[in-house]
């Protein structure tokens, strides 16, 4: 480098506005001023227009009584609750459906994606059919279809389908008994937590033994059986009691128990089915990206087919899968806003819908709603980037 510098000598003198570095600064400054100016103009303009229309602004409305009710809430809410509580209700409902949607879409998506590469003709064709049908129909239409199909298929309240354990299924939802336990149940949770920690230790031991002696240990089955047995034993020993709050048919519907409304079922189902089709393609692409030689090498080591996929192919495929998978998770979360159309009380329905209309605070409400989706998206993306960093190829 030094030799190069010496060879080029002093650069010829130029006027300062011809200096590429200074020029770069000037252009950047110009763009920054323009952008800031543009947004300032928008804000001032909006403020003037609102004032001209005699319209109040600000976030005071969040502390006012809402005056409406919401059918499906994770926290208590009624007409005397405040607008900020409506915001929280919408937020939690959005999170709930997104989390459950992501969980099922991931499982289904990986299954279908792998199925598409199956050597079984029927399995791979069915998977192809699924992907092509689902991802080529707009989600909103699918949601309408699932929602009204779900409603149509369900029995009316008075002809509710009675299921085992005092559960019921009808047009108003799926009702199951709600467990009510006393405080001695704490011992059971505590025992379960200890068992879970122990399972991780067990896994490490099993893996070390596998590498040293080549003998396998059924970690998963042991952990599952062990935790159930120990939890049950502690539950009986502690003398904790569990009773159930059973749903009972009232004049119009079942009361008590836990309720899963059809709007939630249709939305979670529709989102999972839809996103799974895209995840399946991502997974297929990821697996295809792993060189065939890897599979052959695994075969020559004598690994079984399941192990080849799990231990050799998938870990390498994940490096390709994770970034687009993140996008699918973000899409699913944002698409949950379509729930408003089928009556699921998520953020857009409760806050950007009802609250906006009752208060008229369009800018504030839409701003907050956009901020929520932005935050969700950034958090998901941060988590997935962290995970991506973990599975990425370690270069030494």
């Amino acid at each position, binding site marked *: 480098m030094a030799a190069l510098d010496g060879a080029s000598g002093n650069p010829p003198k130029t006027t300062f506005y011809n200096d590429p570095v200074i020029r770069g600064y000037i252009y950047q400054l110009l763009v920054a001023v323009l952008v800031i100016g543009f947004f300032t103009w928008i804000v001032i303009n909006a403020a003037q*227009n609102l004032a*001209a*229309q*005699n*319209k109040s602004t600000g976030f005071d409305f969040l502390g006012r009584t809402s005056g*409406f*009710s919401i059918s499906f809430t994770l926290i208590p809410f009624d007409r005397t609750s405040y607008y900020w509580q409506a915001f929280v209700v919408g937020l939690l409902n959005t999170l709930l459906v997104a989390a459950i949607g992501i969980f099922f879409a991931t499982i289904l998506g990986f299954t279908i994606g792998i199925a598409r590469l199956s050597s079984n003709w029927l399995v791979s064709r069915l998977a192809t059919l699924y992907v092509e049908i689902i991802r080529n129909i707009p989600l909103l239409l699918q949601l309408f279809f699932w929602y009204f199909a779900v409603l149509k298929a369900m029995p009316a309240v008075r002809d509710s389908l009675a299921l085992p354990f005092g559960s019921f299924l009808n047009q108003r939802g799926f009702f199951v008994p709600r467990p009510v336990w006393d405080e001695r149940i704490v011992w059971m949770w505590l025992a379960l937590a200890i068992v879970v920690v122990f399972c991780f230790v067990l896994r490490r031991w099993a893996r070390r033994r596998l590498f040293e002696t080549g003998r396998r240990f059924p970690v998963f089955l042991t952990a599952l059986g062990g935790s159930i047995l120990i939890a049950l034993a502690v539950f009986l020993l502690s003398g904790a009691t569990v009773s159930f709050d059973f749903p009972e048919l009232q004049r119009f*519907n079942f009361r008590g128990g836990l309720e899963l409304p059809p709007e939630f079922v249709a939305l979670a189902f529709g989102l999972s089915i839809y996103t799974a089709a895209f995840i399946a393609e991502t997974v297929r692409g990821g697996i295809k990206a792993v060189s065939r030689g890897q599979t052959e090498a695994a075969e020559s080591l004598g690994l079984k087919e399941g192990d080849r996929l799990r231990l050799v192919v998938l870990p390498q495929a994940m490096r390709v899968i994770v970034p687009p998978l993140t996008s699918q998770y973000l899409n699913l979360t944002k698409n949950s806003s379509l729930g*408003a*159309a089928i009556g699921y009380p998520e953020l857009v329905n409760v806050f950007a819908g009802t609250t906006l209309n009752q208060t008229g605070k369009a800018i504030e409400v839409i701003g907050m709603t956009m901020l929520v989706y932005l935050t969700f998206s950034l958090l998901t993306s941060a988590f997935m980037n962290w995970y991506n960093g973990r599975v990425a190829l370690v270069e030494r």
Partner: protein
Amino acid sequence: MKKTLVTMAVVASMGLGATAVQAQTLDAVKAKGFVQCGVTAGVPGMSQPDANNNWSGLEVDYCRAIAAAIFNDAQAVRFTPLTSQERFAALSAGEIDVLSRTTTWTMSRDTDLGISFTGVMYYDGQGFLVRKSDGIASALDLDGAAICIESGTTTELNAADYFASHNLDFNPVVFVDKPEVLKAYEDGRCDVLTSDASQLASDRTKFADPSEHVLLPEIISKEPLGPSVRSGDPQWFNIGRWVYYALLEAEELGVTQANVDEQLGSDNPSVRRLLGVEGEFGAPIGLTNDWAYRIVKLVGNYGETFDRNMGEGSPIGVPRGLNALWNQGGLQYSPPIR
């Protein structure tokens, strides 16, 4: 999602569409050659398009009356179907000139939303529609019922008020769009459909068998439905308000679409002032002196449009009730034009 996008676009355009508010709406309307009117996506009797996208209804006729007064052409109106969620933002942002969409006049909307109501086209109240087979006689029997509601309406608040004040419980199922509300009720998701009584009467005509559904006797709220305009433009507000009054005044004076031409020769000073034969009532609101004549000639008076769209002669078939003129036992009353 569509709704959100529209709302976001509207919010954005609130910033960008700067000149819409300050400019005189009348000049802008004259310049573009038509009135942009916000209506429902389809409530028979109020505003409803036919197969050829010709709109009709009581609220549509109000927009036509404005167009008649300004352009002497009742067809110089373009309609924007809006959901109850979109309507106020659309008006604020200048996407529409008049909002004539089954909107209840409330204090907070009138004072804090940047809009002004010009009159009450229809005195309504919130009712409940139930299936006949459920054997419900009164709203007080509805404890625990699932109720289908359109979001962003006063209906949503009234229902909560009513059930709370009677110590009853209910389960609101809230949709953004009316068609989904109706479908969910018809499919059995809800026991009850609630809305303004006039809309329930009109919604019922859409069901497979209208006679299977009955209105409960309780009317739980006052719902004065009226058109509104943006605040901050007194001239446009006056046009909106006096077009409505002219419709009423014409009915009260017995001026109809059929006899309006011969009424030009009337000896009644009130008729002469209304039709612009005497006095100067056009210039103060920026219109020609025969503005009210044009309205009656092209649209008819209030009673005529009511009968045509909502009244006993129409498929909706609601009685005049509160919407009769003041001197016939109703509430519709116009200040004198003089």
